[in-house]
């Protein structure tokens, strides 16, 4: 009897151990990937007629879990899986609005936040707009993404106007359409865009928008700071060695970014920028 108990314990211990070995060799996410590449959306639909919505939910859950939403810098995310997962989800349930918005957000954002595929994001939103033509939010997102990610204010404005005409659409869309067209490229418009997205968003999309807003605030703060540095240089004839010097000279603006990380100061260039270590830092921040 004792021998059997011992045997049971040994075998049981072997289970997590062997699992660990398998994971080390093949990676923890392989199961999802295998299942993913077996099916296209239509194949899955054919598999379970009458249960498409449920399957869409399943794929949606996989998408959300796989890409998380809370972590900003992720090491192991494979963004090449995002588009297929989202595509299957919306093939199964073309009315899942949230899948289009989430998918588009993280397709468009630059690596390492997202896949860095803004065209794919826009395509996805277009598909969403076709499936849900009376959904002003999707159309709004489509417009905003044209503006922010594709740098096409004309098209963006057009789409936003279309969105404004959908019954039930809020009045600010028309204003936004005008702003986008007129100012095109300035920070204040961007702020408007991201504010809208922030207000309407939830979860990771909201957080993403919050990051953008914080970045804009940081840029504003940096403008002030760099202006002060320039003024100091002109007054004293030399660049400050450290930022404290301009504080002693009377500067009252923030020296840390909205994430609480101090700005980096490059004396040789005489410019302050976002610290590379800041969570707000992005390459090519505009």
């Amino acid at each position, binding site marked *: 009897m004792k021998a059997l108990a011992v045997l049971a314990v040994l075998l049981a211990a072997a289970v997590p151990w062997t699992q660990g070995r398998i994971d080390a060799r093949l990676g923890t996410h392989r199961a999802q990937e295998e299942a993913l590449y077996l099916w296209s959306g239509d194949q899955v639909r054919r598999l379970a007629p009458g249960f498409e919505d449920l399957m869409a939910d399943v794929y949606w*859950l996989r998408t*959300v879990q796989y890409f998380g939403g809370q972590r900003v810098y992720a090491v192991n995310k494979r963004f090449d899986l995002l588009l297929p997962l989202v595509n299957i989800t919306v093939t199964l349930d073309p009315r899942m609005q949230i899948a289009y918005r989430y998918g588009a957000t993280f397709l468009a954002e630059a690596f390492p936040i997202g896949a860095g595929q803004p065209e794919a994001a826009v395509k996805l939103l277009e598909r969403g707009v076709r499936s849900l033509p009376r959904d002003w939010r999707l159309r709004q997102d489509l417009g905003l993404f044209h503006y922010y990610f594709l740098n096409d204010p004309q098209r963006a404005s057009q789409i936003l106007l279309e969105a404004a005409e959908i019954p039930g659409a809020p009045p600010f869309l028309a204003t936004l359409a005008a702003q986008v067209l007129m100012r095109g490229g300035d920070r204040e418009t961007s702020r408007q865009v991201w504010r809208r997205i922030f207000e309407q968003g939830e979860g990771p999309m909201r957080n993403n928008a919050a990051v953008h807003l914080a970045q804009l605030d940081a840029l504003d703060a940096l403008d002030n700071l760099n202006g002060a540095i320039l003024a100091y240089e002109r007054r004293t004839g030399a660049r400050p060695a450290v930022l404290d010097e301009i504080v002693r000279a009377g500067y009252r603006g923030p020296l840390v970014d909205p994430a609480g990380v101090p700005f980096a100061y490059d004396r040789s260039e005489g410019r302050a920028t976002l610290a590379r270590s800041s969570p707000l830092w992005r390459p090519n921040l505009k």
Partner: protein
Amino acid sequence: MRRVAAVARNTFRESVRERVLYNLLFFAVIMTLSGLLLGELSIRQDAKIIKDLGLAAIDLFGTLIALFVGVGLVSKEIERRSLHPLLAKPLSRDEFLLGKFAGLGFTLLVNVGLMTGGLYATLLALRRGADPALLKAVFAIYLALLVTVALTLLLSILTSAAVASVSTLCLVIAGRYSDVILNLGDVVPGMPAWALRAVMILIPNFRNFDLKDRVVYGDPVSFGDLGWITAYAVAYTGTVITLAVIALRRRELT
């Protein structure tokens, strides 16, 4: 009529005590409760996921119950001959069949009711509201189950238990793939139009009973729509039961 009720009563009792039923019911309830867990993992989708999962569970497990309990009960009666002493009493074969159908229908009603109750309980526990529109989808699913039960009865009389369960399952699956059947003309080029129509009409169109998507997304389902769906179910089930009555009248009970 009283005799039909007696058979129905007996059928209900027998099926309620079959252990298969409890296992299936258990899994169905578990599935719905999992919706609770899964809902937590998503973004703002928990109500939708729970509804999708709950309705899918009722559909799937209801079908399995209809299939296996239905085939088991009638085939078993014929093969094990528990039917024989009953027919020696003033019970006609027709009455027996109708009683069986009524009993199974009632069994399914109870099961579907329990599962629906579980679904609503889950939704209420999460304070997501008990959407009465779900009942329309459940009603349609119940109609589909009655069609399935009728098919199992007919096939159990015509063939053995094993063949009956497999063939009913095939018909149920085929009935869900009605859009594929529509396109059968492309797949089998030589198929004449009348044959295609015939296949389409013969196979029960289970898509008629699938209101899950519409209900979860809040699309309106008018009582007129439900009325026509019910009429289809009555027509189809009525045909199958009538055929079953004829089949049973002619069947030699060795």
